């Protein structure tokens, strides 16, 4: 059953996944081959490190985009058929959801593997200075875990009751609007809910913790 679910999801998100793998290969090659940073076959370490730090942001954006597309593709076919086919399958709903989630996670895993593989090959070919080391496996794990969080969020949002999602979104928008209005008219000094949400989301152990650190292919 898992293979069937995996195959259908692969089919629907195949172009994006292939593109993501290509980008995953392009980022380290572009970062490590940059000739202006090299002089007499030696990298200028600060410039190289700066380039790798910039590439970290590209990896994060790639993870975010891939996660969003795979999550949407997971439910696209079911949503188009009003979930009739999914409900007619001889297996409980919770198991079907887990299969869908597992398939999405596996597909994200292939992109993460591509990130690790291409990063490893590029780092092996590049004449890295002795002070710097390549960490393709660490980067791949970070990429996979980092992509799984937004994937799970979007996946859950699409798998929920639309009425509840509407209520949640409306309530959230109303709270934020009231909060900002109260701050604007001077009842409170600054938006409380916005601050609280930002602190909760960007806390060191918050849901976006993965995106707060750098995803370095090459580090000290």
């Amino acid at each position, binding site marked *: 059953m898992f293979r069937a679910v995996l195959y259908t999801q692969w089919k629907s998100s195949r172009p994006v996944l292939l593109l993501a793998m290509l980008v995953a290969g392009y980022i380290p090659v572009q970062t490590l081959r940059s000739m202006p940073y090299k002089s007499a076959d030696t990298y200028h370490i*600060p410039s190289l490190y700066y380039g790798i730090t910039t590439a970290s942001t590209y990896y994060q954006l790639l993870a975010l985009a891939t996660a969003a597309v795979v999550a949407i593709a997971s439910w696209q076919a079911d949503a188009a058929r009003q979930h009739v086919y999914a409900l007619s399958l001889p297996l409980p709903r919770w198991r079907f959801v887990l299969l869908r989630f597992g398939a999405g996670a596996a597909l994200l895993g292939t992109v993460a593997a591509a990130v690790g593989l291409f990063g490893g090959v590029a780092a092996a070919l590049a004449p890295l200075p002795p002070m710097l080391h390549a960490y393709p496996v*660490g980067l791949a794990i970070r990429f996979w875990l980092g992509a799984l969080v937004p994937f*799970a969020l979007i*996946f*859950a949002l699409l798998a*929920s009751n639309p009425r509840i999602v509407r209520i949640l979104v409306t309530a959230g928008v109303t709270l934020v609007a009231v909060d900002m209005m109260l701050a604007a008219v001077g009842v409170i000094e600054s938006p409380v809910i916005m601050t609280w949400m930002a602190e909760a989301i960007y806390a060191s152990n918050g849901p976006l913790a993965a995106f707060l650190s750098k995803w370095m292919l090459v580090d000290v």
Partner: protein
Amino acid sequence: MSDRRPLVSRFAVVARAFMACALVVCAGALQAQQDAALIARRDSLRARAEALRVEVARLEAIERDSGLAADVRAGGLHLRTTDTLRAVAAAALADADADARRMLGAEADLLANHLQFTLREHRAPYRWTYSRSGGPSAVEADGRISRVSLEGTLDDRDLLGVSLDYPVDRAELASNALMIVERAIAHRLPASIAAWLNYRVPLRPDPPGFWPELYRTLATADAAAVRRCVAGDRTSCRTAFALDSVPVDRVAAWYDASDYPALARNAGDPLQRSGMYRSVARDEQDDCTVRNHLDTCRRMLALLPVEAFRIPMPETARGSLTRLALEMGGARAVERLRTSTDTSVGQQLAGAAGAPVDSVLDRWMQRVIAARPSSPLPSAGFVLASLACIAVCVTWAVRGQPWK
């Protein structure tokens, strides 16, 4: 009649000329008189304005200090503040005194005799409000304290203070008081090491993650000498710290050829670089900074003044080495540093540590190299936070009924 007319006419001409001359002379004298009066008036107004400025400053100082009714003492340290801030100031000053005493020993008492803290409160004079008809506008605030400022004076010399958000907590205030102590003690050191330390002797404990971050900074530094230092080369460390003296040929001593293109782009300040850029054609500049022709880079760098190449070891690293020397030297280390007559920074640090500078350097290098960040695999906290978030989302998804 006929022969009298020319005479009258001539007389009239002479009289008119005389009157004109008299008028010119009088006008000039009048003008000079007016100018002198104006100048005198201007000078008197200037003097008055200056006197008023002094008076305003005096009155402002009196007004500023009028609320400073509370005198707080902790150990030898002395702070003036308002009654509102007395409690937090007393607690913070006690913490700062304990920390300073731990590093400075008896020197803390000597310093305290010359150091005076002031903690002031600042109230926002207005706040922004919004009305549908008038848009945003400023209205008088309710007089709550919005910020506090901590200032330090060392023998009537103002030290750079700090402004903090209110309410301020004890730890933050203590840390900032200690920062002022760091600046105060640096002003009492010999000029060479005070300048080397950028006028701040590090007394505060290292923040979490300081050493791994220092390793990363040094391993990816602009100067090859710094990178070789963190790779374990002690001689490079001595050179990069400029412990013995600042080298004559700074570029050759501190940098590798591969560093030259970036150095040509970044060395010195914009004014110093502009002189170099004026002397070199655009194509030649590109030869160095884009095409990495090292001979061109050498020529460009030779055009920069020697002051453009500062000690490449970052200030944090110099501070950490000094702190280590003070720790090794024990209670009287700062006193030895203050009274040192040695000329080189290395000898001064060795005197403070009570050990050869190489052994201080070796311990510092060991500490830096041991702090090398391990593989950037996600930490346990990161994995747990991610898995917890994923678990919550999956549970939410399992219970969802999107067809409804």
